[in-house]
């Protein structure tokens, strides 16, 4: 009977990091199970049952041996989930838009309850992140960071053009971005990503007097950006020299492929690392990607932390082998009985 010791929640598409971590777990001879969100869509037969020991997950197309039994799991990694768009495609296709919306939002809630039950039942002491705190609230992050004496950009959320104008007058330039983590939109199957964007005085003037509450920050003049992968108190940081390139000045993800930004290993000063560590503890995160700016005036300014951020983009250029470090964390659960 196979025993899974490591359980990974991920998604089937675009998860390069999960694949490499799994290669490292494999090299350390530890049995693991990867569950992708899409394994739970309406093209798979599965059941969740309760017995005296807890919740047992079983897929019909597999033999009984591959049941995932919570008592065997020694460590988990909540990487991602993904694969929920089947709900939109398959259900609620009536001619009544409002009814469709009600049906879908009910099904979403049901599906999230299933997801929560599954992830909760496999919770163990040795878990990298958990489902419940992977959707970061950037406002809470900034508030807590500020309480811990980390520098943050001046920030407002406002629905008023007047307030926005007053705010913007205090700074050379302001930016806007989404309040919570936002993967992007798809318009006629064409994907649109939401990047951090500068918001000009013309943009402000084009707004109605009242609008949907939106997030604005002073634009910090930067020497460079820092992305740091954090795991259990350790920082693996990279400086991103995005400033010299017009295209990436505001958001380095707006990549210039011909002349990529310089990405090199960086060491965050110890005092700043200590505060960031306290922030991660306060947010109940033991793993995540932290974004900072080294401002032209020398300050380290905290922007946000993304618990499920891509870390291959730090691991490869700096040769940190972060995928092995993640694997080692998970495999170490093997020794705990």
């Amino acid at each position: 009977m196979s025993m899974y010791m490591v359980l990974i929640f991920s998604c089937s598409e675009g998860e390069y990091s999960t694949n490499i971590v799994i290669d490292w777990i494999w090299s350390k001879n530890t049995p693991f199970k990867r569950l992708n969100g899409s394994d739970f869509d309406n093209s798979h037969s599965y059941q969740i049952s309760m017995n005296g020991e807890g919740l047992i997950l079983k897929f019909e197309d597999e033999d009984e041996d591959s049941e995932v039994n919570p008592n065997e799991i020694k460590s988990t990694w909540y990487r991602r989930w993904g694969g929920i768009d089947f709900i939109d495609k398959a259900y609620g296709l009536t001619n009544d838009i409002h009814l469709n919306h009600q049906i879908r939002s009910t099904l979403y809630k049901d599906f999230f309850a299933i997801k929560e039950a599954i992830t909760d039942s496999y919770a163990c002491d040795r878990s990298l992140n958990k489902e419940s705190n992977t959707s970061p609230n950037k406002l809470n992050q900034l508030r807590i960071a500020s309480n811990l004496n980390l520098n943050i950009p001046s920030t407002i959320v406002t629905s008023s053009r007047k307030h926005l104008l007053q705010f913007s007058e205090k700074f050379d330039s302001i930016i806007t971005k989404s309040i919570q983590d936002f993967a992007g939109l798809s318009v006629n199957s064409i994907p649109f990503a939401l990047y951090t964007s500068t918001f000009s005085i013309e943009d402000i003037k084009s707004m109605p007097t009242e609008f949907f509450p939106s997030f604005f920050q002073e634009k910090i003049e930067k020497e460079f950006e820092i992305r740091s992968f954090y795991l259990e108190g350790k920082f693996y940081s990279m400086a991103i020299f995005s400033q010299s390139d017009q295209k990436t000045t505001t958001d380095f993800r707006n990549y210039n492929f011909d002349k990529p930004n310089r990405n090199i290993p960086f060491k965050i000063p110890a005092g700043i690392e200590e505060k960031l560590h306290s922030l991660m503890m306060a947010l109940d995160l033991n793993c995540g990607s932290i974004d900072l700016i080294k401002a032209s005036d020398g300050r380290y300014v905290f922007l946000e932390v993304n618990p499920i951020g891509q870390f291959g983009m730090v691991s490869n250029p700096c040769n940190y082998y972060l995928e092995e470090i993640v694997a080692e964390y998970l495999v170490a659960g093997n020794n705990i009985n």
Partner: protein
Amino acid sequence: MDDSKSVLLFSNCIPVKGASRSAICDLQRNSFQLIPNTLYDILHDYRGKNTKEIKSLYDNEYDNEIDEYFKFLIDNELAFTTLEPELFPSIDFSWKSPYKIENSIIDIDENSCHPFEKIFKELNDLGCKSVQLRYFTINITVDDLIEDLRPSLDSRIKHIDIIMPYSKGFDYNKLFEAHERINFLTVYSAPENKTIQKFDTPIFYTVEKISSSQHCGIVYPANFSINIDHFKEALHGNSCLLGKISVDIDGFIRNCPSTPYKSGHINEISLLDAVVDESLREFWLINKDQIAVCQDCEFRYICTDCRAFTIDNEKYAKPSKCSYDPYNAEWSNPSDNPFN
């Protein structure tokens, strides 16, 4: 320029010293810049020192030259200035891998009868990342190719490269649909040189005839790999053979199909036995610092070595198909020279 600051090479721009000049290997932008050895020495010996300190180490006799050097580095975005050089550590280029095998070449000709089921299963068990199949046959049908690759479908192999002869009307679409892991297709004896970008997988047409494993081991700048993966591999071991195991046209297991040492026949032993064969593994770790002439070459960590075709077939001799002389910085075959 502010002399109290340090001019620091971006840590992915690595100076490598040669006999007559040095190269800064830009591992992020896949290029290199040639520099005089005097600049190499400044960069290597005084990394992190500020410009004022460096100038005084030369008794301020070369202030203008040093300014000129540093301006060149900054203008070319190879370096930046900082007051805190200690916050920018060098890259640790240690090499490690979760795989027991990195890549594999399988050669096939008219007479080959390889047990593909066995080969792919064993490559899978070894965690092999990439496989290259080279067809030295006169003709190949899409169905044959699909069938040969069929056992790879359930494996962990990530990339498959194919080198095959040109065949008129070949149904590439059918091949790519059956095998999504093919990420590179080279078609030789083609009517013209061109790259077809119609599919997700690029197809390279070449008029050249690639008829045997002898057609390999050519070392010249157009083939340089200037990236971190290759660089750390070349520091650690052999930039062609590290973690490589291959099957030749007759089914013998070798490092690469062109190297002389045979570990056994694929019908008799498994690839798992072959990878622990010390005589085969020995070549994995021969790096450029151990190879005559190459050890004095500024390109030694960005070229691809060859241990199959070497001068006088010596184990530690320079690849015979490389025409560069690092002592005079000249290519005996002028068409290899990237500056011509």
